[in-house]
């Protein structure tokens, strides 16, 4: 039993819903009680979807438990096929239905429906949303692109005529909608034909065309990794699984794709890629060594660490993921940056790690954005779980060349606004500036109530006393590095056995720790 307030991932059947909602002509019949229909609003509200997701819930009640919940499931299946006329249905159980063991697979098979039925076994009490999405996609791929009876060696098409599938983009994915466009454009510029994008936008019958491609591009291993492995083993399709996030990863991605396609890798970046110059330009100097804490799904977290360290000159002070299935990848990356990897889906543990790391910037999920607000640390969101804000009206990919531009803007702006806040803070005694006003970059919704003026005061017990003057001097330091300055000064004082911290101590410590 685990105590949870907020979760990074929903249950596995929500992952299956995301696959169903991504595709055309597929319907999901879910054996579930009525409350589980809340999941519809993830799609209609967060994603602003203009149709209901293709899911039928049996919504059984307590009174049905003694009677015939199996019959309710069969009726729901028949009605859904009749009403929505899908090409195929997936059937399964949510957490409650799993306990009553009605066997949706067997019941649906007994109905002898005129369309394919793909049963899903998604263990609700041990697995989570991304696993459920990956498993569902894999089951669909197996069902509609079955392994050949007699495996034959793959016919190699001539270089320049090869095609690929783009695997992984999904409904409720972080910027998947725009990543597809960006990646497709890059592939086509390279002379690679895109055979199929799946699951987003594909139908079950489209999946039958997957083996036509020469190789696969896996954008999100959390969702398409299992299916890509299977396609490799059974259809001989190699795959590229470098997420093209950032300038260097995009170049690596294009080189790998070019290798499989038998074409030349692009020699130069397009003019529209402004990111390397923006990062080299003189005003970006202040970004050097900014301490950044990174948390998200494994794909986005690992990619963000590379961009942060190599392309923006930040210092990675924390790296973690909630995707336990990809812990190995994150651990390997953490070694590179000399930090302790954080593999946890406990948001309180993540918050503790953030407080301990004293970052100047957080790259995280919506959960870390809230932590950042509380701690008044600049933050940019890099990963699901998604929020309505993660579906901007504008084109805003994370991947490819435009994605690299977007990363520069969306990670650097919060820092610049933090700097502006400091400049405003310097005028705090000026009659025109209201000390009670919430910082503009936190948004007007950020209620200043119930927040201590300096949140680091709340979370850390004070090991040494500060003189009034030293405390006043500390307040002149920008709030987003104040916590670190306070901590360093106190450590400095404790190590030297000082009883009180004076202005002298503050500056001695600063000199001691200056890098």
């Amino acid at each position, binding site marked *: *039993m*685990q*105590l*949870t*307030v*907020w*979760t990074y*991932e*929903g*249950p596995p*059947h*929500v992952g299956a819903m995301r696959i169903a909602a991504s595709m055309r002509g597929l319907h999901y019949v879910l054996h579930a*009680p*009525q*409350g*589980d*229909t*809340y*999941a*519809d*609003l*993830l799609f*209609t*509200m967060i994603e*602003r*979807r*203009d*149709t*209901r997701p293709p899911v*039928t*819930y*049996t*919504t*059984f*009640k*307590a009174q049905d*438990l003694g009677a015939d919940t199996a019959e*309710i499931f069969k009726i*729901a299946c028949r*009605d859904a096929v009749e*009403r929505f006329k899908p090409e195929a249905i997936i059937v399964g159980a*949510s*957490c*409650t239905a799993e*306990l*009553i063991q009605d066997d949706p697979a067997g019941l649906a098979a007994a109905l002898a429906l005129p369309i394919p039925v793909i049963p899903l076994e998604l*263990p*609700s*009490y*041990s697995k*989570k949303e991304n696993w459920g999405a990956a498993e569902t996609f894999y089951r669909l791929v197996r069902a509609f692109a079955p392994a050949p009876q007699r495996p034959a060696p793959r016919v190699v098409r001539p270089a320049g005529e090869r095609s690929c599938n783009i695997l992984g983009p999904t409904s409720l994915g972080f910027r998947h909608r725009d990543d597809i466009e960006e990646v497709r454009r890059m592939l086509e510029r390279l002379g690679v034909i895109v055979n199929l994008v799946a699951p987003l936008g594909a139908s079950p019958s489209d999946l039958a065309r997957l083996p036509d491609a020469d190789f696969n591009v896996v954008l999100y291993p959390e969702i398409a990794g299992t299916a890509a492995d299977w396609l490799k083993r059974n259809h001989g399709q190699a795959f590229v699984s470098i997420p093209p996030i950032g300038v260097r990863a995009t170049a690596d991605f294009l080189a790998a794709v070019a290798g499989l396609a038998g074409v030349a890798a692009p020699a130069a970046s397009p003019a529209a890629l402004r990111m390397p110059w923006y990062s080299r330009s003189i005003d970006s100097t202040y970004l050097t060594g900014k301490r950044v804490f990174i948390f998200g799904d494994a794909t986005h977290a690992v990619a963000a660490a590379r961009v942060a360290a190599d392309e923006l000159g930040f210092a990675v002070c924390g790296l973690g993921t909630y995707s336990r299935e990809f812990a190995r990848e994150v651990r390997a990356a953490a070694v590179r940056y000399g930090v302790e990897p954080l593999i946890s889906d406990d948001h309180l543990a993540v918050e503790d790690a953030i407080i301990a790391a004293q970052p100047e910037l957080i790259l995280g999920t*919506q*959960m870390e954005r*809230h932590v950042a*607000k*509380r701690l008044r640390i600049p933050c940019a969101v890099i990963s699901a779980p998604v*929020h309505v804000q993660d579906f901007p009206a504008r084109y805003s990919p994370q991947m490819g060349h435009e994605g690299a531009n977007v990363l520069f803007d969306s990670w650097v702006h919060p820092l610049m606004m933090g700097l502006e806040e400091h400049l405003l803070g310097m005028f705090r005694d000026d009659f025109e500036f209201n000390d009670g006003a919430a910082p503009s970059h936190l948004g007007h919704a*950020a*209620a200043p109530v*119930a927040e201590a003026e300096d949140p680091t005061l709340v979370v850390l017990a004070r090991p040494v006393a500060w003189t009034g003057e030293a405390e006043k001097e500390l307040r002149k330091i920008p709030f987003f590095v104040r916590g670190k300055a306070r901590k360093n000064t106190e450590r400095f004082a404790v190590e030297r056995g000082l009883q009180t911290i004076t202005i002298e101590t503050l500056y001695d410590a600063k000199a001691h720790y200056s890098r």
Partner: protein
Amino acid sequence: MNAMPPRTGAQDCGPVTPLRQRGQHEVFCGLTSIIWLHRKVQDAFFLIVGSRTCAHLMQSAAGVMIFAEPRFGTAIIEERDLAGMADLHEELDRVVARLLARRPEIRMLVLVGSCPSEVIKLDLGKAAERLARLHAPATRVLHFSGSGIETTFTQGEDNFLAALARELPAAEAKAPPSLMVAGALPDVVEDQFRRIFDALGIGPVSFLPSRASSGLPPVGPATRVLLAQPYLGEAARALEARGATVLAAPFPLGEEGTTAWLRAAADAFGVAPGRFDAITRAGRRRAREAVGRHRAELEGRRVFLFPDSQLEPSIARFLAREAGAEIVEIGSPYLHRQHLAGEFALLPPGIPFSEGQDVDRQLDRCRAARPDLAVCGMGLANPLEAEGIATKWSIELVFTPVQGYEQAGDLAELFVRPLARRAVLKLGA
């Protein structure tokens, strides 16, 4: 094939037989009540004993992840608990101990049953008794079921108040008559009602739930209960079991509903009609004026209400009688005939009424009727908007202060807003 719901009749004060279709219910489960209950009772913590789905529902339905640490959480049952590798009761004790250590300000812990905990027959009553012994006197421990197999949405509050009713101290034998207002109301509305009751000379007045668990009001044979919400069947029964008398009244939505509701209390406490008129005159006038300003926008508009909070009949009555709207269908997850008799007596005859839901067939009826406004849940709103039907999120009716005289205009405005927005946008089709 597409049955039309039976209609309300003025003579029999209710729908003869509501349309009941077995199909998909597109409603929240009772756990969702916790979203307002945990704000209302400020020293309580609601611990759902459930699955990852329950936790995910709570954060999705709460809409935004709340800034501060909320006073609710989920003890997620895991595979090892089900496989018998861990004792569920011991696990629960461990989780509760950790929680209370982290939140020492909590005075009332509420264990909330879910679909999985009901199906595996986890005895939360027994758990609550044991935990109450362990954590007494600092923390009181209650339990109720918010499971989706037994409750929809607001029925979670109903079950919570029923549990609370059993905890209330007994009033003294010779206690004078007192008034208890049952059903969570926004604090601002509570304060307004309290002032009106004071002016009417009705008292003592208590509210259930109280804002703090330390202030639980006494109950006994002299307690007169006025239901502020229409979904309190279990709570009313539990209060009656404690000897209280439930006053029959429509619900305090709109000028008319508020007046009738207050009058039920006034009559029970022997307030002279002249005094009642004098005290409520200003409120009634303000409410009529405020609603009147929106009437032109709502008059003759055709409104379809999907089932959600059980407030639907009261909302329909308000929209029909005070705003001049035409009600196409009233859907409600459950109909408590006795508590809603007052509403049906006021509703114009002939309005189709459905209880429970088959969402697909109900959507067919809605599309066929092409209403000017559909009041519906968040799962249906954008799809209906995309089909050209203006919508109002029904969930706003439970999160916005809408009861009483001073909010009657706000209630009307909630329905005007989507229509007004359509009028101002010049975006083309």
